[in-house]
Structures are given as C-alpha cells and as structure tokens.
C-alpha cells in the first residue's frame, strides 16, 4: 500500500492553483498503486485554509503550523518536511512544479536521502514500478525515467492534471507535530516590481512574438514590420529580452506577461513550457519555425515551416494583397 503525500503550496490569495492539480495527480497515483493520498499544508495560521481540502478524497489533511513557517524559506521548509517525512515515511511526496518548489525540493530530497523527479507531466505503472514522463531539451524531447528507493519526491508540471478531475470525499484535517527546531536560513527584505513592467500586453488583440530564432537585434525589423501589417503589438520569448533585443516589458511567459489575444504569431520560438504558459489563452496561434519538430507546432493552429526571414516578408506581402483585394 503506497502512502502518497501532496505538499500544498499556499499564497496570500489562498491555495496555489498548481497545488490543486498536483492533488489530482496524487489521487491518480494512489488509485493506480492501491494506496492513499494525503495533503500536507505548511505555514502559520493555515488551519482555516486547509479546511477547504476536507471535501477532497484524501486520507488526511496534515497541517504543520509553526511561526517560522509564516514566510517561505528553504531552511524552514526543509527542516519541517524532512522531520515529517522521517517520522511518517511516505513513499511518494508530490509538489507543484512552482518556482518555490524547484528551489527547495531537490535539497529536501537530498536531506531525506530520497530520489528527485523534477517536472513530471505524466506517470504510468509497469510491474509495480512507476515510470515518470518529463520534458528534456526545453521540451524538444520527452524522457521516461524510473526512480529507485524511497521516498520519491516528484514535482508536477502545470497543466499535466486538471483540478476539475478531483475525486470528492471527506478528509479529516489534523495538526501534524514536528519534533525539530525549524530555522529560517534567509532574511526576507521585501518584494519589488520588475523595472519596466508598464506596457500592458494583456489586453492586446494581436501579438507578434519574436524568439531567439530571429537571430539578432539587427534582424528584428521583420518582426516590427509584420506587427505593423497586422496592427499587432510586439512580444518576445525570454532569450530575446535577455539579449537586449527588446525591453523587459515585452517578455511573455511564466516570468513575464500573460496574453490572450485573438491572434498570436510565434516566430522563431521553440515552445518551451515557460513560454507557453504565457500565451496558451490565445485564440488562434500561428507558428513560424524552421524546425518541423519544434514543440510550438504542438500548440499552434497553423504553422509555416521555414526560415522566418523568408517567410515573414512573403507573409506581409500576402497580408497587403488580402487587404487590398
């Protein structure tokens, strides 16, 4: 009987949406392995918030309350969770693959002498062994991996499971005492807005987005020209911003802006998950990429395979003709 834990990340507004997806992954794993799933919530004064989980099919909602857990720090989270994992010995511990988890979970795996599976998007069970699927090479490839030993710590990627697939039930909520000193290992000084986040792309109806494939700041002209022809605003993937070809406000993705236009044109963008989360609400997606196997074609409605420096001028011409005719 497998004992599965899901560590539920909370934030000021409540439970992190990716944590709900991860709970569904935990329920699915429990069903598949024949076992039980429970939730673990950490914090200070989070008992109330945990009540929300009592309508889920879970064997328990464990609440670890401690004043040192009021704000997240890796030291405190690792201290509390490694003590809890040490005393309760779960076989699998699932986490949402958030920026917070990526920071502390691998180190937690080290401290509980466990295995770490980062960024799982699916699993299957073969002869009692769980095989996890995860992306590699920025999503260009997929890998199937198997972890040995116990516990196995897994971070579950956004969008892999849907919170609406949850099984309902009646879970008891109870405090879980941890018998260790919990120590924060960083001083939090504050939060700041990223400079230049003032161009709001979220309301744009058409977006033309440039990727690293454009090839240089001096070659960005085609992107601006296409945007002008379409009456679109210009966005970009992260490497374009990091290289200084466009200002930071133009970045679309998990660490940039979220857009939901009618038309999204991705030119020279491979389609890494961190980019996709920023544009998946687009109605019609057009991808222009010279690599037929680029993952962006998996989310596009239309695609042109080719060199964007040849395709875009032709596209502008075709748009002008269509407008005229």
């Amino acid at each position, binding site marked *: 009987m497998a004992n599965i834990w899901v560590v539920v990340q909370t934030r000021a507004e409540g439970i992190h949406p990716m944590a709900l997806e991860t709970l569904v992954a935990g329920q699915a794993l429990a069903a598949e392995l024949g076992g039980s799933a429970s939730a673990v919530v950490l914090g200070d004064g989070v008992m109330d918030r945990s009540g929300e989980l009592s309508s889920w099919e879970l064997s328990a909602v464990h609440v670890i309350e401690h004043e040192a857990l009021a704000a997240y720090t*890796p030291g405190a989270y690792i201290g509390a969770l490694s003590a809890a994992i040490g005393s309760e010995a779960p076989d699998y511990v699932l986490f949402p693959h958030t*920026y917070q988890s*990526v*920071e502390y979970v*691998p*180190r937690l*795996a*080290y*401290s509980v002498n*466990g295995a*770490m599976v*980062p960024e799982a998007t699916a699993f299957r069970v073969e002869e009692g062994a769980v*095989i996890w699927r995860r992306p*590699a*090479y920025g*999503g*260009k*490839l*997929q*890998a*199937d*991996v*198997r*972890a*040995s030993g116990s516990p196995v710590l897994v971070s579950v990627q956004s969008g892999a499971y849907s919170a609406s697939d949850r099984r309902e039930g009646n879970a008891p909520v109870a405090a879980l005492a941890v018998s260790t000193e919990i120590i924060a290992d*960083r*001083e*939090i*000084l504050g*939060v*700041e*807005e*990223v400079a230049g986040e003032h161009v709001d792309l979220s309301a744009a109806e058409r977006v033309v987005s440039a990727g690293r494939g454009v090839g240089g700041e001096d070659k960005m002209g085609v992107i601006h020209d296409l945007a002008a022809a*379409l009456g679109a605003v210009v966005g970009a993937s*992260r*490497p374009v911003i*990091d290289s200084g070809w466009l200002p930071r406000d133009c970045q679309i993705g*998990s*660490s940039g802006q*979220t857009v939901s236009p*009618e*038309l999204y044109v991705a030119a020279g963008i491979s389609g890494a998950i961190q980019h996709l989360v920023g544009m998946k609400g687009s109605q019609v997606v*057009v991808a222009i990429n010279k690599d037929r196997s680029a993952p962006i*074609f*998996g989310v*596009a*409605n*239309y*695609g*042109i*395979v*080719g*060199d964007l420096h040849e*395709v875009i001028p*032709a*596209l502008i011409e*075709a*748009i002008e*003709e*269509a407008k005229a005719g």
Partner: protein
Amino acid sequence: MKIAVCIKQVPDTEARLRVRSDGLGVDEEDLPFVINESDGYALEEALMIAEKTGGDVVVFSLGSERVREALRKALALGATRAVHLDDVAFAGGDAMATARALAAAIDGEEFDLVLTGSQSDDAGYGSTGSIVAGHLGWPHAWLVMGVEVEDGESSARVTREMESGVNEVLRLALPAVIEVQAGINQPRYASLKGIMQAKRKEIAGKSASDLGLSENEVGAAGSRLETLAVFFPESGETAEIFEGDPAESARRLVEKLQKEARVL
C-alpha cells in the same frame, strides 16, 4: 572573495537533435556543444564580483574530455583556474550524483560563494546547485536576478525572480550557493589576450578517488533516476502546416486566417 562556478557543457539549443539508436539519449556525434546558457551568466556574475571585491574565480565542470573546451573558454573570459571532474565513473549521473561529485571537489577548498546556473538546457533538472548547497550545509537561492555582496563580505543581498514579473529581495549569510537565472547581466566576450592567457592557465583533472568518493556513489551507479527512453513528443498536434515555397505557404496561411479562423 574566492568564488567557485559550476558550468555544464550542453548541446547548442539551436542544434538539430537526433535520438541515439539505443533510445536512451541523444546522438552526440557532430553535435555543437556550448556552455549552458544560465551557467554563462553565473560565470559573468562571478567575474564581476571578483573584480569588485578582489579575488579569484575557479570553474568546475564534470564530463568527458570534451568539456575542457568549455573550461578553456571560461579561463579565456577571466577565470583564474579550472577543475575538470574527469572520470568515466562520473558518466550518466543524475543531479544527486553530479552534485555529490561537485560538492566534494568544492569542499576541498575554502570558497566564500558558489555560483551555478539555475537550470541546464539539456536534462533541465534545475536541481544540481541546491543539492550542492545541501552537501555543503550552506544557504542557497534559486533563480537569482541580482547579487550584491554586502560590507564585511559576510552576507549578500540577493534578488530572486518569482512568477509573473515580481522579484523577492533577501539576505543570505555567506558562504552560500547562488543559482543564477539568465538575463542577470550581459556576459562579456573573450578577448584575444584572454584567449592567449588561458593557454597558460591550469586545468586540474580530478577522479572519483581523488575526491574520496567510491565509484558507486557517482555517475549512473550513484544515481536515483534511471532514464528508460528518450523520444520526440508524439505529434498530437492540431496545427495545419504549410511547407515548401514561402510565398505559397504565406498565401495559403493568409487565406486560412481570413476565411477559416476569421482573424484577419
């Protein structure tokens, strides 16, 4: 300050990948290799901190003979010397095994700071730096977009990226491990002088036994993850794709956007 930087050599993100015939990895023959993107930013940050505070940058990399190119490049950019974790026993390791070896090599000297990239462009575990921190027992921060060593050099003010365009500012006691995110700075180019000087700089090779590690603690034997298969995603794709002549593709796309999608 004495700063260690861990760099990984990975296939260029522009390279056309082929899956190896055994299906367990990519075919490395003729593949162009470069320093992992975020590691390059980590190296630049280390060089800038060392210039400001006075000190040395020592680069570490684990891998085959080929990674010496990446180390040589780091030396040309300004690192003082390099350590190559060079042993067939290191091959095929996951983040746990790789971090164990790197931490053992770093622990042999007294560093004030360890900088790594936040994620590799190949395996993408995003884990190695924080596990190194675990081994060393130092505080760490991931996805760092700013580092300022504070007066007295006993702490650093660190800016860390969070989701959706917000940064968190925190203070870490030194020594610490800092995992740098791409975009933190503008990496420099190697000068001709730097390239010439790099030829005389030391690259020390270290085997598992040099680091006091047994062969089953490192590489595939010391790993908790086993890769069973690597493959291109099944194209459950929805896209209607045009290939061939750009003008013809463009014309057909515009027609679709007008008549079918009705967005033009």
